[in-house]
């Protein structure tokens, strides 16, 4: 993975840069010594590591603004970081850049039930938002697997998803407003507590911009009322095709489950060996279906889903009869990544989305590719929304395996795009899928996106080296594209 070449002149100024930042964020807000920088070397994509020039941990929006303005004036690159749980390398440091850690922004500022929203600082964890309101019967819907650790600021940057996306949407569908600081140090408020904001939907484009457009310093999230009941079902199938068919049947019946997950045989067995959730280890595919709402709705829909599963020849059907049992059903799925971590020294988690009807074909092809590369693979899958998570198993200590795993992963993502899908459903492009962007977008598409970047950060100092395969200077992109000639449009009907 190639990152932008470090600027030796900046590296030579490290001492001066650290001192200047210490003046802006006094106390223990700046880390410059090598041992203190170690914990910031990588994020959730631990295959890639880099020590940054320094780490800054501001506590106020004013400090964030001062740090960014100083960095812009001095040409210093900035990598924003929440909890560092990104699975795509979004918070991977740069050798000649600073990491701006937002962990100290850890307060819930306001819970506003009449408007069903909460105003929180970006370093608050995803789960802590629900924690603050659940006693009153509310929750924050997006639930990425890392929700115990990941921060809401990072969720905004990555447009994080989770198992409940199909029914409740991603982060972008659950935000009302935020405050961001631009690289210039300007503080801009986007949205508020109303349903729509004046002007362009800049909140919409900042969400999922992977820390390239601004640093989030405050977030207003929507709160939802907790459903009265929730019930989970485990449906075992003898083939992936039958399970995939059942997913289609459920949706065709007009049922949008709160969660609709699929695991293949290797994932089922790894999870069962790890947590003993009672999964059918003989099954070729397992569906976990969660239904929520009033008791009457859960009862009606679970009976309907059971019928549909039977019609597809399900080998086992279990419905949770208590909250404890429901959580046990989920325990295996939620522990799927660490469970797979036990059967291989290392793994890559891929994240493409495909049209659901392509699932049997794509899983078959992934199996063939695994044999070709001589690597293991386990599949967990947000089946409801077509979001695949193939886990590629490898051993980084064996020469060539990391490279083979990278190539295998790239092939999977190219396949996803080829069947009408996308490179990433919820983990972000980061550095991991950066060089594959050309599979989905042509140069014109990418230039358009980069011009948006230029509108926010004209010097390209915020998180460079992520998302875009090539860095174009803004002036170069600004050249006006003029077509001359054709004045008449003979092919046009005129009225």
């Amino acid at each position: 993975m190639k990152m932008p070449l470090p600027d030796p002149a900046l590296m030579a100024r490290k001492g001066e840069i650290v001192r200047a930042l210490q003046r802006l964020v006094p106390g223990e807000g700046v880390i410059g010594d090598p041992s203190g920088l170690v914990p910031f070397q990588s994020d959730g994509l631990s295959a890639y590591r880099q020590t940054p020039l320094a780490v800054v941990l501001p506590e106020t929006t004013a400090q964030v603004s001062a740090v960014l303005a100083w960095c812009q004036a001095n040409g210093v690159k900035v990598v924003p970081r929440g909890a560092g749980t990104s699975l795509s390398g979004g918070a991977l440091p740069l050798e000649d850049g600073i990491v701006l850690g937002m962990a100290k922004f850890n307060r819930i500022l306001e819970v506003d039930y009449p408007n069903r929203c909460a105003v929180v600082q970006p370093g608050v964890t995803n789960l802590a938002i629900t924690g603050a309101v659940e006693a009153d019967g509310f929750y924050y819907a997006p639930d990425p697997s890392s929700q115990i650790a990941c921060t809401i600021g990072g969720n905004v940057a990555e447009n994080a998803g989770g198992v409940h996306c199909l029914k409740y949407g991603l982060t972008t569908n659950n935000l009302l407003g935020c405050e961001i600081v631009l690289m210039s140090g300007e503080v801009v408020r986007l949205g508020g507590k109303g349903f729509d904001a004046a002007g362009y939907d800049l909140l919409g484009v900042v969400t999922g911009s992977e820390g390239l457009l601004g640093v989030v310093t405050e977030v207003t999230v929507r709160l939802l009322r907790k459903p009265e009941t929730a019930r989970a079902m485990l449906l075992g199938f003898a083939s992936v095709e039958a399970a995939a068919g059942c997913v289609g049947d459920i949706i065709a019946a007009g049922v949008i489950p709160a969660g609709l997950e699929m695991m293949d045989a290797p994932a089922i067995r790894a999870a069962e060996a790890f947590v003993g959730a009672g999964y059918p280890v003989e099954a070729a595919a397992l569906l976990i279906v969660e239904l929520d709402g009033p008791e009457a709705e859960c009862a009606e829909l679970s009976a309907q889903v059971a019928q549909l599963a039977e019609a597809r020849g399900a080998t086992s059907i279990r419905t949770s009869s208590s909250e404890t049992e429901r959580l046990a059903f989920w325990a295996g799925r939620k522990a799927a990544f660490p469970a797979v971590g036990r059967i291989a020294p290392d793994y890559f988690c891929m994240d493409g989305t495909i049209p659901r009807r392509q699932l049997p074909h794509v899983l078959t092809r992934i199996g063939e590719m695994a044999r070709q590369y001589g690597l293991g693979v386990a599949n967990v899958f947000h089946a409801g929304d077509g979001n695949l998570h193939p886990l590629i198993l490898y051993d980084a200590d064996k020469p060539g395996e990391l490279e083979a795993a990278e190539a295998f992963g790239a092939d999977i993502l190219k396949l996803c795009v080829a069947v009408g899908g996308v490179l990433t459903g919820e983990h972000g492009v980061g550095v991991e899928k950066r060089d594959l962007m050309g599979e989905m977008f042509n140069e014109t598409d990418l230039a358009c996106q980069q011009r948006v970047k230029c509108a926010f950060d004209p010097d390209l100092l915020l998180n460079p080296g992520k998302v875009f395969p090539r860095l174009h200077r803004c002036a170069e992109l600004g050249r006006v594209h003029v077509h001359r000639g054709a004045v008449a449009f003979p092919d046009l009907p005129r009225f």
Partner: protein
Amino acid sequence: MTEAAATILRPKTAEALARIVAQGRRLEVIGGGTKRGIGRVAGAQSVLSTSALNRVIDYAPEELVLTAQAGVRLADLEVLVAAQGQMLPFEPPHLTRLLRTKGQPTLGGVLAANLSGPRRIRAGAARDHFLGAEAVTGRGEIVKSGGRVVKNVTGYDLCKLLAGSWGTLGVLTQVSLKVLPAARAELTLLYFGLSDAQAGQAMTQALNAPVDVSAAAHVPATTAARAPLKAAMAVTALRLEGFAASVAARAEHLAAALNGLGRCEQLDAGHSRDFWVQIREVEAFSKDPRPLWRISVPPAVGWRVGATIPGDVLYDWGGGLVWLLSDADPAQVRGVVRTLGGHATCYRGDAPAFAPLDGSLAALSARVKAAFDPKGVLNPGRMGAI
């Protein structure tokens, strides 16, 4: 508008549309032209319509995704998805009677204006269902963003930017939308004679109960007296949708929770549908010459709009969307709304249609506009300064 603008260009392909834009003339961009009265385009040399881009490209109901060209008529699309037992979840308003226009709203127009109906509070806005776009920027380039699957974070989400940009950033040529199964059953609970403040509290209480209210509106007495409702007192309405057993259970729960509000009437599915079309289309205000405002505020303070500004009001989105008919000074309207934490769009009247933005936000928005349309050829002036 100049003489030349009387000619409407209707390209049949995105490529032909791109060639027109690349010529560099200032263009008024329209779909069906039904919302042309909102925002003034300054000095357009031609009118460019997407109405000849009218094919449905792909609709796989089991994938919950529909891809169509931008000029497809909204009404046709609604029939298409209804035939598969599905719906456009954001319940888009047509607003043709309200805006007294004869044309047909298009899919592209609804997305470009980010218009959402009563189900906005539960299902999200047009922008939340906008999965992918092909658009022609002011540079005359065809650009695509997003995809044809329901979950995607690859690259910047330019669909969000294009939604609600009123054709000032790009001309939508093709879009992908998330669709959902239509509700199998619905009913509406009606309460009568509540003041705006009481109704505001009642809607908050209903929306905060675990009953999944899919629409909440309040029609004050003076508005309710008008056609088509012609009711003798204020009407507050709460809609429940879903599977029959679930709707019945939730209706019982909700009625018990709101027991103190007095008489409660139930509208069956047919009457409920008619009622919410009236709300969605703001029919009560369609025959009135006074300036018309669409106001977005935090829902819990919505009722204060009617309490502060003289005129007639209608509250949707649990108070978060306020339609106001008023002769009040536009500066007063915008001042009050701003204090409440919202913004007001003038749908009819002399005031600028869009609320001006603050310094940093205005500058950033202008840079975003320039990124897409450096020469300002797409709907110049339509959104005011940007």
